C-alpha cells in the first residue's frame, strides 16, 4: 500500500482548496480500509488528550502526545519505516486524506502545515521529533521529552544539517538534554544545537574517540563548566 501511494503536490493543492472552502466539514467521509485503524487510534488519542479540561490543542504537550501515538501506531501496526517517512507524498496523503480535520484543528488554514512546505508539514514534524528522540520504548521517550517546549521541536527537526539527520546523534543529544535541562543555563538546547552545527563542519561524531556519547557530553560541558 505505502509503496504504491501516489499523491502529487497538484492533487494536494486541489484537496486543500476543498478544505479551505469548507473547513468545518473537512473530516474525511471515505477513507481507504487500510487507514481506518490508524484514523481510529489517532482520533481516539486526540479525545483522550482533552479528558483533562486544562489541556490546549495549541500546545507542546498536544504535539508530544499526538506525535508519540502516531509514531507508535505507525511502527507497530503499519510497518512504517524511515524510507517512508522521508517521502513528502506520504505525509501529504495522511494530512489531507486521513487527518485533514485534525491538522485543521491544530493549525487552522495554513497550507504549509498540510502540504505546501515540506519542512512544516505538521504530522511529518511530530513524527520526526519522536523518531529523532526515540529511546527504545514509548515510555522512556516520553520521559525524556515531557519537560521540553515547542522551541525544542523546531531546533531539533529544523536543524537537519547538510545532507540529513544523524539519527543516533540526535537521540543522544535528547537523552542528555533530559539530564542537563534543569541547569541554570538559559536556552541551553538552542545553544548546544548551534555549537553542534558548527562542530559538524569539522568532526564526525561517530568517529570521535569515545563515540557519540562522548561527543555529546563535550557539547553540554562547553556550556555547563
Amino acid at each position, binding site marked *: 500500500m505505502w509503496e504504491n501511494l501516489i499523491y502529487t*503536490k497538484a492533487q494536494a*493543492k486541489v484537496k486543500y482548496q476543498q478544505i479551505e472552502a469548507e473547513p468545518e466539514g473537512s473530516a474525511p467521509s471515505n477513507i481507504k480500509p487500510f487507514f481506518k485503524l490508524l484514523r481510529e487510534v489517532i482520533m481516539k488519542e486526540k479525545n483522550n488528550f482533552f479528558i483533562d479540561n486544562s489541556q490546549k490543542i495549541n500546545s507542546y504537550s498536544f504535539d508530544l502526545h499526538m506525535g508519540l501515538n502516531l509514531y507508535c501506531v505507525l511502527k507497530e501496526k503499519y510497518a512504517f*519505516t*524511515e*524510507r*517512508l517517512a522521508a517521502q513528502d507524498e506520504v505525509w501529504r496523503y495522511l494530512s489531507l486524506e486521513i487527518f485533514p480535520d485534525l491538522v485543521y484543528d491544530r493549525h487552522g488554514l495554513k497550507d504549509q502545515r498540510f502540504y*505546501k512546505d515540506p519542512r512544516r508539514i505538521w504530522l511529518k514534524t511530530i513524527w520526526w521529533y519522536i523518531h529523532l528522540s526515540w529511546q527504545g520504548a514509548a515510555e522512556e521517550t516520553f520521559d525524556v521529552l515531557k519537560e521540553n517546549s515547542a522551541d525544542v521541536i523546531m531546533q531539533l527537526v529544523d536543524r537537519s544539517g547538510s*545532507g540529513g539527520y*544523524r539519527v543516533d546523534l540526535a537521540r543522544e543529544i535528547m537523552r542528555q538534554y533530559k539530564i542537563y535541562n534543569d541547569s541554570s543555563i538559559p536556552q541551553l538546547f538552542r545553544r548546544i544545537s548551534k555549537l553542534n552545527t558548527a562542530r559538524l563542519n*569539522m568532526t564526525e561524531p561517530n568517529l570521535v574517540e569515545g563515540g557519540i556519547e562522548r561527543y555529546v557530553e563535550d557539547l553540554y560541558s562547553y556550556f555547563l563548566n
Partner: protein
Amino acid sequence: MANRISMNKFFDEAMEELLNVNLNFDFFYKEVDGSKYILDQIVDHEFKILLKNEDDSWDYAEKGLGISGNIILGNPSSLFGPTQLVAMDAELGFAFEWMSKQSSQRGVIPLAAITSTTPNNVVIPVDHYFPKDKLFGEVYISLILYLKKASRNSVRGQAGYTGIILGELVEWNVILDGAGSTFPIVIVDEPEAPLWYVDFNYSEPLIEPFDKEYIAIYLNKAHVAFSAIKTPKTKFDQSLYVEFLSGALQIILQNLIETTDWQDIKEGKNCEEGSIGEVMHYFLTTFNWDFDAPERLAVSLRKDLESRLKSGEL
C-alpha cells in the same frame, strides 16, 4: 561563498600517490536465502550511478543494497611521520560516509584502522548493507580517511582531534529510486484534466533538486491521447510527443527565466549539485536552444527535439 581555512594537513593527490592505493568495489543485493548478486553499474551524464541486475528485477525497496570490496594499501606507513599527514603514534581510520538528502538522513560506518606499523600491501576487506527500509531517492557514498586516534606529541599542521575527516578516496552517487536525471514526469489519472500540465513548487532553484516535488510535468492517463504520448508509434504520435515535451520544457524554462536566479543559472554559478539550476545550466550549455526570445526558444526546442527523435535519442 564560504571559505574554509585548513588548520591541518589533508589527504591530497601526492599522498595518494605515495600511499599507492588500489580500490575494488562492487554493489550487490542479497536474496532472502542470503545469496549475493552483483549489480551492473550504468553511469549517466551527471556521473550518477544507475544499478541493475540481468533481468532488471532488482528493486532497492524490496531487496536493499550492499557495497563490498577491498582497499589495498601499497605503502600505508607513508601517511605517518613528523612531516606527513599524521604523526607516527597516531591512528588513521577508513569509513564509509553516506548521505541522502532525499532520505533526510546521513551516517558513517567505521571500517578499519591503520598505524605506522601496518605492513605494505595490506588488504582491507569492507562490506556494508543498506536495508530496504532505510533509504529513498539517491545516496552519496564515499570512502573517507579520518583521524581515529590523535598523537600524544601533536605537531603544528597535523590534525589533533579525533573524528576529523582528512580526505576522501572515492565517491559514488547512487540512484535508488527513479531513472536519474530524466524529466520529472508524473503520470496521473484525472478524467477532467487536460492531457498534460506543468506545476511549480520551487522557491530556491539553485538549491532545490530537479525533482517532481519542485517541478513536475503531469501526463494524464485518463486522456484519450495518453497512449500516443506514452508509446508513440505513428508519425502523428511522434509529432504530438514533440509538441508535448517542447511545450512543457518551454513553460519550465520561461518560468525560470523570470526568476532572479536566471543569471546564475546561465553562468552555472552557485548551483548545488543536482539542483534545478544545475540541470538547466546543463541544458543551456549542451543543447542549441535559443533563449533570446520566447518565439525563438519555441522554434529551437522543436527543431532540436525533432532531430533527436529522428536519430533515436528520444
